[in-house]
């Protein structure tokens, strides 16, 4: 699916210098937020990025266009991610930092919603005949059978969210080991 080696095809708005400045007009800013959110989702999906750590991500070409020598400010960046979190497209990861400034620096990007992931995993289980089998989390994200799947290398947090949805639907069950740790998941298949 992903075109390896090819750089991400940025939309033309990416070359529009004011795109990297937080616009004071609220309507413009709303549009700008929406465009940025799309851009981040697209970029992350294209490059299969699950988490954005702003400390390093701010240097990415996603947030700074070398051609026109413009880059997004950290604050603006955080504001954009915040709006994505509100829309359900991302989630802050409570980092190790103690103070508030350090806190919201890392975010999980849901370039697919957990529901989509849940459906995708369920379909994959069906198509590969793994119904009623017990799989570890690792097997789902990095196992041999999931090699060509979209959720290959999926972030553990997202995976857990997706599986939780399946559990709620009654399609899976989380298996715990004796010491209470999550060991794997059992799929029941679609009735």
């Amino acid at each position, binding site marked *: *699916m992903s075109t390896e080696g090819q750089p*991400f*095809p*940025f*939309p*033309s*708005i990416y*070359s*529009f*210098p*004011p*795109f*990297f*400045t937080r*616009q*004071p*007009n609220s*309507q*413009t800013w709303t*549009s*700008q937020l*929406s*465009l940025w*959110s*799309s*851009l981040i*989702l*697209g970029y992350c*999906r*294209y490059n299969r990025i699950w988490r954005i750590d702003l400390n390093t991500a701010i240097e990415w070409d996603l947030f700074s266009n070398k*051609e*026109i*020598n*413009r880059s997004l400010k950290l604050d603006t960046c955080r504001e954009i991610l915040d709006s994505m979190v509100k829309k359900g497209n991302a989630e802050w990861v409570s980092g190790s930092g103690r103070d508030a400034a350090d806190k919201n620096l890392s975010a999980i990007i849901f370039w697919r919603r957990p529901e989509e992931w849940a459906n995708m995993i369920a379909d994959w289980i069906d198509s590969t005949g793994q119904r009623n089998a017990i799989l570890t989390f690792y097997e789902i994200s990095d196992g041999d059978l999931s090699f060509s799947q979209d959720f290959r290398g999926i972030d553990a947090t997202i995976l857990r969210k997706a599986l939780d949805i399946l559990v709620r639907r009654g399609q899976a069950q989380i298996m715990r080991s004796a010491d209470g740790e999550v060991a794997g998941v059992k799929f029941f298949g679609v009735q």
Partner: protein
Amino acid sequence: MRFWRPIELTAAHRPVLYDDETDILVQNSVGIYEGRSRLPEYQNGRIYLTSHRICYVDVASPLSHSVAINLPEVKTAQYTARFLKSSPKITLHFSEETYSASASPVYPSSTSATPDASTTSLINSESTTLSLSLISSVAWICPICSFANHFASSYRPDISPIPACITCGVKPPEAVIKDALVEGGIGHGAASPTNDDGGPLAATDADGLACPKCTFVNNSALRFCELCGARLQTSTLNLSDYLIDKTEARKESYLPFSLNGERSKYALPIQEEILMYVKLSFRSGGDKEFFERVRAVLTDRTWLQNASRRKQESSIIVVNKELMNNNMKPEEGSPKPPLTPSFGIHALQRINEREREDNKDLMGSLSDLQSLMTKARGLVALAENFAVRLASSPGVPEEARRALRESSNALSLSSPIVTKEMAGGGNNEIYHAELARQLAEFLQNGVLKTEGGIITLFDLFALYNRARGISLISAKDLRDACEMFETLKLPFKMRQFKSGLIVVQEVAKADGIAVTMLVEWVATAQRKPYEEDDGVTPQDVSQHFGWNVGVCVEELETALEQGKLVSDAVVGGTRYFVNIITSYIWDWKMDIFNEKSGEVANAIDLTALEEELPNANANYMKFSSAYKSPTNVHQAMLANGKSLL
């Protein structure tokens, strides 16, 4: 109206002044009278005292109801204090001979009223001589020795020099002579002599007239008291008055009268109405000061001083002009011929002399500020003279002409400066209103044009004060004056930007127009694809529109707030672009992954934006057409990326 004549107004509703006429005083809420009759439509206006005239500018309808009287025709001024409900008034008496001599040619209506012009002039001159012949009977009391002097029969009021006292040889103050003339009835319209008949026109009583000095009742035919020889207070009928007033509204009240001298035999009880004076009624104070100034003007005869200076100056200009353009038709543009004919060597000498003086002026005035101040007037005249010369000589580049015109504009105001003293009694409101009017004139004289239609208050402050040269105004006065633009219905207004920057602009130019103009221009100035130093800076805007940079920033920020422009904050400053963000549509899943989805970034209503942002919309159209088919998307993206490189 006989005495009040219509006048021209400037756009700011101030009277247009003659060359060298200067404003002296302004007063609000004044009503005017002619004779005893109150002029109903002229009861609330501003009264301007100038060196030549007293102008009345109506508040309600300034264009149709603005009139003036000429001060040279005024003989004396009288002051009546407030009495119960009656406002204080200033009565201005007209001297009959100057009035009747000058009135008929000035009055346009009089031509239709007088079928035979020669008759009129004959009568006029007759009545003039008559009134003058009586002057010898008038006595003035010398303030030094109290001797009652008689005027020489050749004495002409306002023309002849002031006579010296026969006994002590001291010349009296002019006021004494004037008072005497008024008392003697020469300056007093009501007491001027009779007409050609010499008949008993002034029979107010059937019995006769009581002498004002000895109270003896004389026969009404007599003009001097039989007993004491004092002048009797006879009312007269001035023939010219009839001629002039024939078309006036009041003519119905007159008795039938024909030009060939046949007069109705009836008595003329309305004579008192034909009074040779006008009254100014001061409804809101300022009367005393006005009166003092009027008296000072009448005593100084400011109009004469100015006139003589003008004569000198114009003669010089005429000489210069003639010599410069030999083939120019003589006297076409100049109404007055030079005072002395100048030909040959004499003229050349005069030119040389003049040039030497000019050079001296130039060199001397630039040596220090003090001398520049004293010679300012001369220098301005020189600059104007030079402008005239330059304008009439061929082969001068247009740029030089324009530069000169502008510089001379900046050097002086078109009208004399408004000072606090001018506004009656230092009344701030009147002062600021006048200041606002002059500012409006100043702005209209091309100042606002060179500033691109918007001028900041501090630029205006600097320019206006430079134009004033002396007695500069304070920033507060300027601001107060500008605040009155709208109440005075002047075509300018003050506008405050969010940051607090205050500008003055034309009323016709709504706030939105500047922004629209700006956005349109920014759209044309943009390059595509974008580069690092793309966009528009306030400096660029300033260069293009001629606005002050501060104004540009404010206008750009306004456009930004309205969402018509977007900003690009970089280290070097903020750059501005047309807003394409709001109308940009990007379906990322479709574009990159060729996937159908309901999620379209920026799905907002575009129809509202279409009219506002034609350019941005065109932009959008381009994109949407390029991405119409999903298969094109990737190539288009890549192509776009390449073109960006």
